[in-house]
């Protein structure tokens, strides 16, 4: 038979090239918008390690996003820059530590309990930060100076520069993608997917499933912390909504809309949702109404997400090629 034509890798390479060339053709505004999207894409990919990877639906993933963002606030001196090389690992470590502690509790539950328990823990952070004067309380707080990338007297890039920030975000998104790709096809990822399919059977096969789930939860939390850190660095502002259930819901929507069974799915979802949000918010103050209707329709109409739609189209195209 003929060699099977695979559309996916080509599309991915094309998309990567397009993102690399994007700042050459787009102005500052769109570079910033795309940086925001790629930050959300990192966030969504981290959640998909749980949802698509292990079948753990977390509705409190914003907790780790918020922690990463507030870590930058804490590590930034009042009117000076924090060191990127110190503050970024510290933020990721803080999110990972919190994920370890919370994971130990919530992973004892499963199914709907897990959904509710994760939501409740994120809400706990939300209420704590809302009431914490030293973190700016419900008004939030500003980070006046972006982190400084100077290392041994050299400054490879400046985060204050829109284009540099864009490329740093792109590099981190690509790194996250590669890490998740490796994890997915490593034994670790296969065990997680085994747990998603049938946890009892995996346990019967001798896998300590709790430890695998906990490791997945910590990695997902750490990557969400990375995304939160970048978000705080980009906007120079943090507030309790970063921990909120709306943030957790939107990122879950990105995963589902993009398609959780394909690795690039969450990236697709992030692009679709942030662009839609941007478009709707320009059109009306009540943009959440069409957004909500869109989500309801998407759930009813696209059981496999956008990437499922792409796969179907791909299969359709292959069928055409074979027929010709």
């Amino acid at each position: 038979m003929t060699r099977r034509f695979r559309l996916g890798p080509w599309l991915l390479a094309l998309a990567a090239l397009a993102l690399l060339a994007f700042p050459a053709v787009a102005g500052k505004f769109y570079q910033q918008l795309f940086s925001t999207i790629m930050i959300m894409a990192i966030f969504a990919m981290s959640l998909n390690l749980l949802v698509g990877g292990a079948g753990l639906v977390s509705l409190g993933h914003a907790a780790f996003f918020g922690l990463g963002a507030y870590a930058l606030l804490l590590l930034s001196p009042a009117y000076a820059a924090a060191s990127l090389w110190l503050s970024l690992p510290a933020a990721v470590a803080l999110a990972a530590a919190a994920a370890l502690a919370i994971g130990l509790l919530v992973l004892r539950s499963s199914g709907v309990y897990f959904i509710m328990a994760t939501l409740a823990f994120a809400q706990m952070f939300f209420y704590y930060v809302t009431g914490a004067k030293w973190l700016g309380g419900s008004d939030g707080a500003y980070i006046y100076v972006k982190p400084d990338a100077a290392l041994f007297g050299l400054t490879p890039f400046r985060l204050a520069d829109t284009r540099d920030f864009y490329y740093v975000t792109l590099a981190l998104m690509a790194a996250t993608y590669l890490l998740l790709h490796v994890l997915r096809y490593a034994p670790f990822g296969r065990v997680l997917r085994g747990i998603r399919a049938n946890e009892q059977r995996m346990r019967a096969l001798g896998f300590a499933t709790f430890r695998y789930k906990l490791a997945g939860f910590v990695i997902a939390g750490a990557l969400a912390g990375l995304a939160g850190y970048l978000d705080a660095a980009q906007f120079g502002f943090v507030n309790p909504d970063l921990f909120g259930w709306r943030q957790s819901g939107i990122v879950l929507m990105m995963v589902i809309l993009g398609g959780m069974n394909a690795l690039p799915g969450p990236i697709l979802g992030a692009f679709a949702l942030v662009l839609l949000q941007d478009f709707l918010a320009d059109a009306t103050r009540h943009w959440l109404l069409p957004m909500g209707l869109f989500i309801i329709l998407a759930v009813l109409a696209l059981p496999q997400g956008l990437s499922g739609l792409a796969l179907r189209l791909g299969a359709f195209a292959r069928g055409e090629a074979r027929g010709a």
Partner: protein
Amino acid sequence: MDTGLVFFLIQVLNGVQLGLLLFLVASGLTLIFGIMGIINLAHGSFYMLGAYLAFSLAELCGSFWLSLLIAVPLTVLIGLALEAALFRLLYTRDHLYQVLLTYGLILVFEELRSLIFGDDVHGVAVPGFLEASIPLTDTLSYPVYRLFMSAVCLAIAGGLALLIRRTRLGMTIRAGAVNREMVQSLGIDIGLVYRFVFALGVALAAFAGMIAAPVASVFPGMGNQILIVSFVVVVIGGIGSIKGAFLGALLIGLADTFGQVYAPAIAGMTVYVLMAAVLLWRPAGLFGRAGS
């Protein structure tokens, strides 16, 4: 009587009253999940719906009682319509899609509320003869309306327990929760049972919003606030258990009230710390079955 002791007793009454109110919302949530297998994030929106209906109808017809009389059947109808239009499609879908669809529903409800009523906080007057307060010491008193709320909630809780445990309908509901196919093959229309349970849950949440309106006022985001606390109640009590929801709600009501009074710095967190403790001790809640 000693002022400190009276103050303490007032907090107990407040905690119980909050707990009973939470029970009305959480019982619907736990019933809808336990029987229909649907996780409904929009349940808090029904609470909000009830409160705004009470507010607008009371303005229109001038009587709090009349507005209750009109609003309760109205919310039942809205519940039935939503069940027919959306929730029916979710019975066989994964929890993930239930979460998302009902999340979208929250956004729609919130924005509709913003479009129709605006984003201001509104007060609802306490109905005439319940306006009084019972004086306890020279400086402390307790409002009659709060006692009335507790009494009504208790009566409803009792009625619900009777309905589920002692009636034929309750038996069918319990059977449907255990084995849907078996109930169907015995010739019972399970769809009808589902419709009833869903409408009951919506009516309970909306009614809670209505009677809470004079005490808690009516404001944006009120539905989500109560939804998340109700989740905590359900997680603590065990999903599908009415008894668990009742005890969990009282526990949370008291913990939250005493947290606000005696440890205001961490008041927002007390209920979650309690939940963490219960999860450590019993991962499936106080009355939950493991593995559900």
